[in-house]
């Protein structure tokens, strides 16, 4: 998932549709994110390329909406409802996911296993 500046990013992605869960006054998705262009990418345990400043899923609540929808820990979020998530700050990412007037978010996520699966299927 490394990218070359200036070139389009390509990845094999999975669509994940998460229906937010209402808890009191909040709508939660049940996972936590890390990363952002304002964060230190070196600390990201999930990224293949340690210079990748994208948004990654760092924790997933068991039984929560995200897990149910198929989100896995370590996934990199590429888009949320069509909005790009590969070049955003951490806060911007958080805000895009937690809009109060949206009950469903559709994510495009990628993970290394997807890439490998595709490669294998292509090779075979």
């Amino acid at each position, binding site marked *: 998932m490394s990218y070359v500046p200036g070139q389009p990013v390509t990845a094999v992605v999975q669509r994940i549709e998460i229906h937010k869960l209402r808890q009191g006054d909040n709508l*939660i*998705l049940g*996972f936590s*994110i890390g990363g952002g262009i304002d*964060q*230190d*990418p070196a600390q990201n345990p999930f990224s293949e*390329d340690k210079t990748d400043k994208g948004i990654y899923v*760092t924790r997933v609540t068991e039984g929560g909406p995200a897990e149910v929808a198929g989100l896995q820990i370590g996934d990199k979020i590429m888009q949320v409802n069509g909005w790009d998530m590969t070049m955003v700050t951490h806060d911007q990412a958080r805000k895009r996911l937690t809009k109060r007037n949206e009950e469903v978010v559709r994510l495009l996520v990628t993970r290394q296993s997807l890439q490998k699966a595709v490669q294998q299927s292509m090779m075979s």
Partner: protein
Amino acid sequence: MMQEPQEMVEETVTVEEDPGTPTSHVSIVTSEDGTTRRTETKVTKMVKTVTTRTVRQVPLGPDGLPSMDGSSPMGSYTDSIDRRYMKNGERYITPQASSTLTRSYNSYNDSYPDSHEGQYRPYIGHDGYGDLADNYGSLSRGVNYRPRYAYVPGNSYRPEDGSFTLPSRRDNYGPIAQPQVPVGSNVDLNRSQPERFQPEPYGLEDDNRSLGVDDEGYELDPDYSTVNRRTSAGVPERGRPHKGRGYDDPIETEMVEERIPYLHGGYAAPLAQPERGSMASIDRLGKRSPSIDSIRKDPRWRDPDLPEVIAMLSHPIDPVKSNAAAYLQHLCYENDKIKKDVRHLKGIPILVGLLDHPKPEVHRKACGALRNISYGKDNENKVAIKNCDGIPALIRLLRKTNDMEVRELITGTLWNLSSYEPLKMVIINHGLQTLTNEVIIPHSGWESEPNEDSKPRDAEWTTVFKNTSGCLRNVSSDGAEARRRLRECDGLVDALLHALQSAVGKKDTDNKSVENCVCIMRNLSYHVHKEVPGADKYQELDASQTMSTGGSQKKKKDDAGCFGGKKAKGKKNGDLDRNFDTLDLPKRSETAKGFELLYQPDVVRLYLSILTESQNFNTLEAAAGALQNLSAGNWTWSTYIRATVRKERGLPVLVELLQSDSDKVVRAVSIALRNLSMDRRNKDLIGSYAMGELVRNLPSRQQRSSKNLEEDTVVAVLNTIHEIITDSSENARSLIQTQGIQKLVAISKSSQSPRETKAASHVLQMIWSYKELRNALQKDGWNKSHFQSVSAAPKGSKGTAGRSGYDDSTLPLVDKSQDNEKSGSRDMIPMDELGPDGYSTIDHRDKERKYKTSDNTGDASEKEPLKNDTNRKNINRSNRASVNLVDARDIKPQPVDSWV
């Protein structure tokens, strides 16, 4: 008859004087006591002792006491001497004596001012040694003794039994029990020698308190001191074999002879045992040579023990005081335990009190003792001196006295004290202006109102100036407030610059004083763009430019700050450079003075001359550090300085120094080049001329000839390379051409140090970012994987461009705190005790200071954890140029994550 006399080799010597003395066998005393005696190196000492011996031989007078004529004293001497020897071998401190001498002398260790700004390494001033040699000479006390003899006889020593008989005191020796001040002689330096003389008490049993050092005698003769020491040599701790007699003061011996009579009665008061008293000695004398027997069994006196010596410091008779102080100095030489004991016994306040004493010999010796005490790894002694207002007392004395030796001792003590960080501000508060007015300005040759007709005076490189500059070096490393005070001290910067100009003119740039001065200048140049009054009006607009340009690249964090700034600056500089050629420096209504001189482009010429001429690594490092500090920052003066360095043909000088064998020099020069390349034209020139040298400095397994530099230095070089290839693909190309890629890849893959790896990876990534060079790289067999390594996470690239908050103090800027801070602590204070090497006590701790830049640019407050790099730059002020790049990375903030 005296068998003992054998030892008395000296006797022989004395023999001359004392006709009666049996010719001594030169057998040297070292016998029994052996060891100690031996040291005598001091043969001269021996001489002394000898004299005593002879004394023994002296026929007793009617009263049983040796007749007091010249010869008699001798007799007594011998006696005493014997005793001494016998008494305790331990007494014989002689050997040390010699050593002490040395010690006292030099103690000048230099305290390194290393404050981080400049990390200095502690250096030890050895000057002392040189002096020591002299001292040794003086040891030949023996020689002196003779003269002393002369006096001795004169006095009526005898009568007093209790009196110590300070030789000098003859006149007033009344029956006063004077503590035998062991050689109080101040010979600070000499401590060793003279004293050692034979600790053995003369053997006067009772008041063996040998004659105190004869003040007169001592004063006259450096040896005296030693002699005294001798007596004192009987270090109290030595345990007195004698019963507790007064200690014998070898020196006193001479006098002792005479004294013997009184010794008995004498001082030894506390210890005097009646029978030991003169009678005892007399007996001895009478019976057979007191010599060995007496000594062995009954050393008439013993050296005073430490509490006694300290008590003597408060004795009403001045010579006793001064002898006690001198003896104390001797005892403390290189003996940490005794220093501690002195502190516990509350000796330090008394010594500080003696600094105000009107008599020169008293305050001189007290100062010598304080100097020895202040030296050492144990800082408690320094604190104790400060707690009893020792620092104001020293400064007061400095203002009052004209005696060069005293001034040397005072400034030496201050140098020692300044190596301990908590005291630095205290020294500044009490002593900065005085030291400047009393020492720096006069010895530098600077005149505040120069007479137009006379030519400028040259600097005098005196010991006092060296000590004072060492002290100021240490204190200048103490942080922003200390720097401010020094910058604003009237005449200091002017005088230091004048002194340095004079040194360059006389081509004498390797001495310690010059080193100290350059370190002070380096420290004061640290952060000058932020700290001097009125700095903000010169600030360039860097921030806005940074922001706009920052976002585009993820540069290393430190770079980020710098880059942003640098980029902007670079452009600006480029423009400005062109303008500078035609622009004048800001108009000055009057000539620059005071701290303004720190950043006038004229200093560039000075530093470059020093860099060209000096061979002293510390001086070179400091001068490079000063240039580094001055060329950091985003203000007008830095821009001028950067351009001036180029115009004064300074870049080749720096590039040549990259070949130096010394780590610290290479490091300082690299960082200076890095800062200088903030200027566009400099960057181009440095890229073309320095790339080869920089690459040559990188380690390489294959190349046998490659230098083996420390990690910090390698990191500094890597960061410099990074800086010069940023924004300049030509420089990146020349890096490729110098075969640098191979080394960089090797470092990034296989270095043991994570910082080196990171720095190398940064450079590689920067190279890779120049797409146009990729073909060339691939032709050489490199591919992307070499350049993009997982581990090379960009340090926190600045993150958003907005990060202009980067504190410019990060590396690119001077931050090399080392410079600043170096000075100072590291240097150990010169201790007189130390021999040429004088170990440095406190070390420049300053160096380690870490500066934290609080740059947080407001980046998202919540983000901090991840952002560590940009925001928290820990500037490491250690000696090494802290390359922030690396550091920043090292601090890994906890990644932040948010629940959604």
